[in-house]
């Protein structure tokens, strides 16, 4: 394709081709510290629906090795978001090496805290915030569970900050770590955050899953136990490749569920969430 950018996130390499230069320039600025793969795991394509649509009301179609049949295009101003969506899509549909959980993760002392829940539950913001407060950021979107060892592999892609989370993190980090503010995308306002240098430098170091939380934002502080069967079901729902992995996926997930301490956590604001996380970590982390 006309323009190309390559990046390795955790153990996964991507090749992104584009009909336009700008989204790739934005990507390469934000992913400056990440290595480029020789042979990528996945190819993503950002292309114009018709040749003239490269220039006239340009809209970005998202394609690649794995595609959804009816993915709607995005405006060129949201090209960076399109690239990220394309990369996520490859992971969601094509990843077979690891059990993929839709979860965020941070690490301390070689042990990992996993957070999963519906979008809007705050797992992404919480992981980004913890990443600035003494934890190693391992990823805000996907956690990769090793099918043999059960270890967690980092996938520290750019953090995709949405709406209110943008202000929270603007107060927390240097502005040169933030991408362009994209207003009125299909998901609302979006701004990407470059993970801390250490998170990138150590992204090939796995960690042992030590605590699993189901956070829920916007409720009074509450901490509940969750039954094993419910945890299992919630994690299968949070995984895009559990079924496709067959017995290896079953083995990895059932082992995780039987060994990891788990709690559901409600919190009214991010500061109280950080406090709850620290307390639960001290009490429970294995």
């Amino acid at each position, binding site marked *: 394709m006309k323009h190309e950018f390559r990046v390795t996130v955790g153990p996964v390499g991507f090749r992104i081709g584009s009909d336009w230069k700008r989204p790739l320039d934005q990507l390469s600025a934000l992913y400056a510290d990440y290595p480029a793969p020789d042979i990528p795991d996945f190819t993503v394509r950002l292309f114009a629906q018709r040749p003239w649509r490269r220039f006239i009301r340009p809209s970005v179609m998202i394609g690649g090795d794995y595609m959804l049949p009816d993915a709607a295009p995005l405006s060129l101003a949201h090209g960076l978001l399109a690239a990220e969506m394309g990369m996520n899509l490859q992971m969601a549909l094509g990843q077979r090496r690891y059990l993929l959980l839709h979860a965020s993760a941070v690490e301390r002392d070689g042990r990992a805290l996993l957070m999963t829940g519906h979008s809007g539950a705050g797992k992404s913001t919480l992981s980004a915030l913890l990443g600035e407060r003494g934890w190693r950021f391992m990823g805000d979107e996907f956690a990769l569970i090793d099918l043999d060892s059960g270890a967690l592999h980092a996938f520290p892609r750019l953090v995709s900050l949405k709406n209110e989370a943008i202000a929270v993190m603007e107060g927390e980090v240097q502005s040169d770590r933030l991408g362009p503010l994209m207003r009125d995308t299909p998901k609302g306002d979006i701004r990407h955050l470059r993970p801390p240098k250490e998170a990138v430098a150590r992204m090939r170091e796995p960690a042992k899953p030590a605590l699993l939380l189901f956070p829920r934002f916007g409720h009074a502080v509450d901490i509940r136990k969750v039954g094993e*069967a419910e945890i299992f079901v919630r994690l299968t729902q949070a995984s895009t490749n559990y079924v496709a992995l*067959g017995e290896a996926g079953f083995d990895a997930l059932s082992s995780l*569920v039987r060994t990891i301490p788990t709690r559901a956590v409600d919190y009214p604001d991010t500061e109280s969430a950080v406090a709850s996380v620290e307390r639960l970590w001290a009490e429970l982390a294995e």
Partner: protein
Amino acid sequence: MNAPAYRADPPEARYLVALDGVALIFHRPSGLTHILAPPAPQILEALAEGEAEPAALLERLRRDYDFGDSDDLEAALEARLAELETSGLVWRA
């Protein structure tokens, strides 16, 4: 007797993990995961001896479990068998 006989895959076709009170079953021929509450796992176990009609199956289960004296046990068993049939874990011989 016209009741159909039921069959199940041999035990090695299933990978069973016990999770607080329920059985998590990975069914190898289908690659599907099932969460089963008692007595469904016990029914599968009893069918390991070979296919059986509901009445005979109930006798097998009675050997190991005490169900008391309820008279609609066979109907309850047939309902469980129908669920297991839908999920593909048992089928009519």
